[in-house]
Each structure stands twice: as C-alpha cells, then as structure tokens.
C-alpha cells in the first residue's frame, strides 16, 4: 500500500430512504412513492492518522455517512474503501470480515450503547471473543484490565454494571471496547454531545492522547463547530446531504468560502466573542423530502442568482458554490 493512497476513500456516496406512506394510503390518495435523499454524492478521503470531521446541522446526513462508512447501513450508490478493501463490493466479503476488527464506532449516547445487563468486563471483552483475538480467560481478563487502564479507569471497574458509571465514564468504557479489537480507525458519531462540558473536555483530550499513542485515524461527526475546530485536522461541511465545503480545519474556520459555512460560523454562540455584532441569519433548513432545486442553500443565500436556483454546484477546489466559482463572493 503506497503512502499516497488515502486510508479511507469515500466516492460519490449516496443513500436514499423510502418515506412513502403505506401502500394502501398511496393507492387511495393516489400519491407517488416518496424518497428522501439523506446523502447525495459525498466524496472525501482520510489519510492514516488524521482526524477528519463532518460537521452539519440536523438533517445534513452526516450520521448517515458515518453508518455507511462502518458498514452498518448499505449505500444506495457510490463506494467506500478502507485500506484498499471495499466496504460495498460483495466479492470482498472475506477480506472485509478481517477488516471489520480494525474499524469501530463510538456512539453518541453512552447510556444506549452498551447492554445494561452485562458487566463492563464482558462488554469490553465481547469484541475480543467475537474475533477470537486472545485465547484463555486469564489472558482476556488481563487485556480488559489493560484497556480499562488505557482509558483512565481501573481494572476493578470491570466488575461493575454500566449504570454504576457516570456518562463520561461510560463513554470511556465505550472507547475501551472500540479499541479492544485493536481498531485503528474509529468513527465517532457525536461522541460528546450527550456529555457536560467539563466531561466533554476529558473525553476529547482522551481521544487525542489515544490518537497520539496508538496512531488512530478518526472520522469525527459533530454539530458543534467549536469541538470540530478543536479536534479535526480536516473538515467537511454538510448541508442537506451534500458536502458544501471541504478543507483544512484552519482554512475553513479562518477563511470560510461557502456562504453556508460563513453563516454557520457567524451564528455559533461562542465564548471568545462576547457582544459582537453579527450578520442576521435568515431562514431555516428546508424539508429534505422536497429540497429546493439547484443549490439547496439558495433560498437562504445572500449571493444566490438565477444559476443557483437551477444548477447544482459541483465541488470544485474544496467548495461547492457558483458564487465562489464565479468570484462573486468577495
């Protein structure tokens, strides 16, 4: 595997959901089938050892992308390959099974992401047993203790049940479990949005420390721009199922080019900017079942013209915007 090939390659990923009414209602009310394009042609690459973040508001499709990348949800179209192995191609099933141990996910809600009836040791050990990584109970127990230590818990904590831990500790357990199968690629879907800020800082710091120690690659999903700014080396901004801007973290936050990115950055209530004057934001996210034609952001965009209402902008040089392409954005 050459150093130039990205570790994760996502090309033209698509997913639509059938949101039609039941068959009988459709027949009686003469309604057509309806589908929702949750993800509509998303492409990006993640290099080994980097943190790529997808940021967007609700309905932007960022979590759907995450689930397709780890293989929990089959795409309607497009391709995901990780370390050269396709997550979609049915002919690569055997290789994918071996790959699966190396990809894990950290979920948003640490209360729901572990079986409440299992002890923590069993929860953390489950991937080890499922992939048959270590033989022998004593060896597994030792490894579980080591993993719990790695995330800042005590080996004895394995004897407790999930409900005996606070939200932040549970998220540590979830990370320990994700690492149990020696994962090298973690997809974290809003890993701290259910946590309080002081605990969020602990988890974010832990994730960075683990990345430095173990060389992990992260796909980080969040709606919180400040968290993304803090964590990601590269960022993709999503709006209604499409990537509107992609680039290095610093560039996107210091010099945003897409009007949506600018609006979002300006809208975020931020500690660093008390009492500043702001450009008023207009409108809300349209219904994704019936998105506006052309650029889906055009009804809210101050730079929209006739072309924007007609033609979907393509991602050129990291930004999908006619105005940026035509130089009208300055």
């Amino acid at each position, binding site marked *: 595997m050459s150093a130039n090939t990205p570790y994760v390659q996502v090309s033209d990923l698509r997913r639509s959901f059938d949101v039609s009414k039941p068959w009988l209602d459709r027949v009686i009310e003469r309604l057509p089938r309806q589908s929702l394009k949750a993800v509509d042609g998303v492409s990006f690459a993640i290099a080994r050892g980097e943190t790529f973040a997808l940021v967007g508001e609700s309905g932007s499709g960022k979590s759907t992308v995450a689930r397709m990348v780890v293989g*929990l949800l089959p795409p309607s179209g497009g391709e995901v390959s990780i370390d050269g192995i396709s997550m979609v191609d049915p002919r690569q099933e055997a290789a994918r099974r071996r790959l*699966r141990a190396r990809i894990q996910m950290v979920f948003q809600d640490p209360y729901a992401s572990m*079986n*409440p009836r299992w002890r923590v040791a069993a929860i953390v050990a489950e991937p080890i047993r*499922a*992939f048959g990584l270590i033989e022998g109970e004593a060896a597994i127990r030792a490894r579980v203790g080591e993993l719990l230590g790695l995330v800042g818990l005590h080996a004895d904590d394995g004897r407790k049940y999930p409900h005996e831990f606070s939200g932040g500790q549970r998220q540590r357990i979830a990370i320990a479990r994700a690492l149990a*199968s020696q994962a090298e690629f973690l997809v974290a879907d809003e890993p701290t949005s259910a946590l309080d800020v002081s605990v969020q800082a602990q988890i974010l710091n832990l994730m960075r420390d683990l990345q430095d120690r173990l060389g992990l690659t992260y796909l980080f999903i969040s709606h919180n721009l400040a968290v993304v700014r803090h964590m990601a080396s590269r960022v993709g901004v999503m709006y209604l199922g499409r990537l509107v801007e992609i680039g290095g973290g610093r560039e996107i936050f210091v010099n945003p080019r897409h009007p949506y990115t600018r609006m979002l950055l300006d809208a975020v209530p931020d500690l660093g900017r008390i009492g500043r004057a702001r450009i008023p934001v207009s409108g809300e996210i349209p219904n994704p079942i019936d998105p506006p034609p052309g650029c889906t952001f055009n009804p809210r965009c101050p730079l929209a013209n006739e072309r924007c209402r007609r033609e979907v902008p393509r991602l050129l040089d990291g930004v999908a915007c006619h105005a940026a392409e035509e130089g009208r954005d300055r």
Partner: protein
Amino acid sequence: MSEAIAPSRLGRFLGSDLWASFKRSKTAMIGLAVTLLLFGLAFAAPWISLQNPYDPAQLELINSNLPPLWSPEGQAPFLLGTDDQGRDVLSAVLYGLRLSLIIGILGVAVSGTLGIALGLVAGYVGGALDTLIMRVADVQLTFPAILIALVVDGVAKAAFGGGLDPKATILLIVVSIGLSFWVQYARTVRSSVMVETGKDYVQAARLIGLSSPVIMVRHVLPNVTGPVFVIATINLALAIITEATLSFLGTGLPETMPSLGTLIRTGNRFLFSGEWWVVAFPGLALAGLVIAINLLGDWLRDALNPKLQ
C-alpha cells in the same frame, strides 16, 4: 456470557427499586404469601393428603357424603367432608390444585415460548414475515381464547378418537392453552425488540460481526424479559381459569383424574341435594389461587412500568 450472570444477583435485587416497591405494597405481599402457600400445598399433596383421590382402592363408600368436620355429622379425619364416592374433599382439592398448577405452568411455558419466538422473529426480521405473523395474531385476537382452546381440543379429540389416556389429555389441554395465549407475548416482545434493536448496543454488536440469531439471544432477549414476566404471571391465572373452564364444560380432564375445574363440575350436581361442600371448597381454592396470582401480577406490572410510577 458467563460473566453476565452475576454471583451477587441477590444483592442487586435486594438493593433494587423492585424490592423496595414490593416492601411498600401490602397487596403484593399478601398475593405472594397466598401464592407460595398454595404452590407449597400443591407440591406436597402426595405427602400431606389423607388418601390418593385417583386411586379407587383407597375410597370407602361407607364414608360417602360426609359434611365438613365442624358440622354436627362431620367425621374425623375428613376435614372438609367427602363426596358420594367417599373421596376426601381436602385431598381432592390438594390434588386438583396440583394438576391445575401443572397445567397452568406448562400452558404458560408453551404459549410463552411460542409467543416470544414469534415476537423476536417478527421484530428483528421485519418485512413480510413480520406482517404475516402479526396478521395471524390480529385474527386470532378477534376470537376469545376459550373458543380457540375448545376448537383445538375438539379437533384433536376428533383426530385421535375419544380414548385418550389422562396423560395425553393433559398434553392436549396444555397445547390448547398454549395456542390460545401466545398473541400477547408475541406483540409485546415484537414491540420491545423493535425498540431495543434501534439502540446503539445492538448496532455495536453488529459492528463486531455477530450474526442476527446470536444478537437476538445474547443481547435483545435478556432486555425484553421484564414485560414478558408480567404477562406470564397474569397469564398463569388465565391459563388456570381456562383449564378449569374446559374441565367444567366436560372437555378437560376426566372425573377419574380431577382438576379443580372437574371437581367443580362434578360437585355442581350435589348442590341441589345439599352437599354444598363438594363444590364450594374446590371453588374457593381456585378463586384464592387466581386472585393471589393476579394481585402479584398487577403489582409487578405497576412496579416494572416506569410510566405508572
């Protein structure tokens, strides 16, 4: 898996809200006490009763139609009197209780297993199979359970002829009850499964490549047992009543092997001739058992349902 089964289950239970709620509820305590007492009596029937009421050799006609002991004509040792064959009513009640409980528990086991399995499959697989199972359940719900039990019973009797031995009759009743009560389990389990499978811990199990049956048994099933337990308790009372009804209608157990229902049916005949005790005591035993189990079930339902708290 072995680690999931806690050695300190008892400790956890004593510290749980369930136990605290039990200690607060007088009715639950009474329900449990009466249920345990009747279970104990039924279990111990062969050792504590005067005679084996199923064994004609032990019956003496000379002792027939004796009233309870506290009546002027009462005779020791027949505490609750005897019937026209000289059968001790207390012994008959104890043995009848035993049979009723065995059939009830087996009926609940059959309907529970069937319902849980179908509910799990419907909820986890979904799609056409789910629709099929749930439509069958809907149709079955439009008939009263007793009617279904009667139909199953009738069909089986027609198929095998009248000469079934008592053991086969018990099996037949158990199956009839099982087929009449599975719907409630299936519906409850299906909806719980749909809730649980949406949770991230099931997704996390899928991520490490576990197969659907493994996920169902290892992760989903243990988390849907709460409501199933409630239904099973309440259905135990229903199953006992159903068996009694079948026996009362004459399609259940024969007079040679009487359950509480059979005793009530046969005892009914003596009401007009004044031997009230032959029917009253089996009736009281049945009512006591069913009420106690229902009290327990009602409490369990409230205690396990967070919405009612």
